[in-house]
């Protein structure tokens, strides 16, 4: 079994404090980096590690950092995405609760690599306790000279601002997040320009997920090659797989990228609860297309899931047993996307609403067989026709539930028709 990196701190008492973090080797790496490495060396090492963005899209972290323009005189910013609102996802909460200084050290290293002297943590508004903890620990770090002017006695200035969101899933999308950080409503921006060129306050900005940044200190300590050696091809290291739904042991499991989904469900999460059978799995948060019980031998990495038409996303695994009402589950999902659509693009705003209504009608036993094709058509009209990926995040599950579990939908429609007759 591979040793744990982040989750080993989950069971250590007071692991969120500077003292305990330093007892376990914390803040050694940043000092080494500041003394011995150039920013470009850090970017190269992270690139070598094959660390992927763990917020959902899986973009290689080192490569993203290299997009920061070298000759731009404007300030650069690092923004850590702690919005964590993808249904089924709860990993960043654990990182902030238990690996608080690991996240801060990762931010210092990332900030140094991209030349940012100021960083923001954009944390979802509901995480009140986590925001309090961050503020308290940032203050402690500042009092120790780990943040502020010339950190650790170096020439590098670095500070961190905690910015609380206010309840909007769309603000997890990086450009909506930047709008929100600037004090506006969370409407996604058109890309390009990409944030690395023009992000927060018109300046080059790197947006990374909490967990992505939290792996950075260990990568710099043990080396990019070591990290790359743990995962599968092009997917470096481990990540925190969150398992929820109908399993015996819901929770967070830190495992190498590429671990088979079957192993995660049956070995780590204890299998389906109450001795039931598996019906379906959502592998990477509610935006990822659903998998049937026959598809769970897939390796949990970005490319393997893409190859079977799904996504690793945020690695929030949602498990459904064979008593699950799939029509109802899809209704819950579509209600969510309709509620969270920012309304900027017609296909997303209207499509999610129509889909929710049609599924509601089916649940009310007033469905028609033609509704099923209409649902698929709605999904296809959203795809590729929107400003931000929320549209696709709604359309992909919609199409996958209806096509993979068409039998369930048909049975529901014909039951409704019989009852009406």
């Amino acid at each position, binding site marked *: 079994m591979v040793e744990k990196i982040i989750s080993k701190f989950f069971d250590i008492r007071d692991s969120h404090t500077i003292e305990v973090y330093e007892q376990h080797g914390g803040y050694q790496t940043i000092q080494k980096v500041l003394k011995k490495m150039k920013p470009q060396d850090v970017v190269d090492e992270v690139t070598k590690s094959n660390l992927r963005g763990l917020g959902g899209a899986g973009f290689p972290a080192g490569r993203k950092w290299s997009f920061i323009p070298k000759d731009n005189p404007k*300030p650069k910013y690092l923004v850590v995405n702690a919005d*964590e*609102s*993808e*249904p*089924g*996802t*709860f990993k*960043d*909460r654990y990182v902030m609760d238990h690996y608080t200084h690991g996240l801060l050290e990762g931010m210092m290293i990332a900030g140094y690599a991209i030349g940012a002297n*100021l960083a923001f943590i954009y944390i*979802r*508004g*509901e*995480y*009140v*306790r986590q925001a309090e903890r961050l503020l308290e620990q940032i203050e402690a770090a500042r009092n120790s000279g780990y943040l502020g002017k010339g950190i650790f006695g170096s020439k590098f200035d670095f500070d961190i*601002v905690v*910015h*609380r*969101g*206010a*309840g*909007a*899933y769309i603000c997890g999308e990086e450009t909506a997040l930047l709008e*929100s*950080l*600037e*004090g*506006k*409503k*969370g409407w996604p921006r058109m890309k390009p320009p990409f944030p690395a060129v023009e992000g927060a*306050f018109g300046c080059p900005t790197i947006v990374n997920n909490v967990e992505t940044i939290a792996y950075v200190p260990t990568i710099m300590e043990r080396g990019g090659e070591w990290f790359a050696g743990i995962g599968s091809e092009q997917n470096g290291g481990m990540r925190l797989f*969150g*398992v*929820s*739904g*109908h399993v015996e042991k*819901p*929770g*967070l499991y830190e495992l190498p990228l590429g671990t088979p989904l079957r192993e995660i469900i049956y070995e780590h999460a204890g299998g389906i609860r109450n001795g039931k059978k598996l019906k379906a799995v*959502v592998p990477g948060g*509610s935006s990822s297309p659903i998998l049937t019980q026959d598809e769970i031998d897939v390796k949990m990495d970005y490319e393997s899931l893409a190859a079977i038409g799904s996504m690793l996303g945020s690695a*929030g695994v*949602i498990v*459904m047993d064979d008593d*699950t009402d799939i029509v*109802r*589950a899809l209704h*819950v*999902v579509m209600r*969510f996307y309709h*509620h*969270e659509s920012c309304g900027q693009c017609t296909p997303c705003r209207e499509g999610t609403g129509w889909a929710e209504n049609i599924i509601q009608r089916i649940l009310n036993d007033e469905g028609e067989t033609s509704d099923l094709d209409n649902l698929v058509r709605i999904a296809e009209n959203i795809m590729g026709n929107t400003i931000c990926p929320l549209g696709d995040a709604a359309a992909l599950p919609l199409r996958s539930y209806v096509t993979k579990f068409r039998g369930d939908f048909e049975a529901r429609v014909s039951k409704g028709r019989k009852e009406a007759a």
Partner: protein
Amino acid sequence: MSVAFSKRALQKCEQIIEQYPQKQAAMLPVLHLAEKEFGHISLEVEQYVAGLLEVPPVKVHEVVTFYTLFPRERRGKYHFQVCRGLSCDLLGCNNIMRHLKKKLRVKVGGTSKNRRYTLSEVECLGACETSPMMQLNDDYYGKLTTSAVDKIVKGLK
């Protein structure tokens, strides 16, 4: 103008604004502060915040109405927010909601007459490993059963 921050809140507000390269960026944190001070964000509060941040009031209004965490009306002392996300739904959050509605005698989205309770339905709160769960004011309560809910309500002051 009839609404204004206390001296302490005003100081806090200045500290917040200083953290950002642009004044308007302090919008969300200042609105959070205003919610703490005034209990909800009325049109008057919006105007007051607009003055503090030197932006037109419509900019504040746009933000307040876009996000879900800025209440525009007074809420109860205890705000129950039951998660209706997919994982919580799979594990029976609708039973928890039904139970709370009966127990608190409020409708979803409503506040009890004595302003003790407000009951809301919210999207995934990022604690699906404890489904079904809810947020009560600033804290999370997971692995809910109807009897666990009874205990929580009984423990309230």
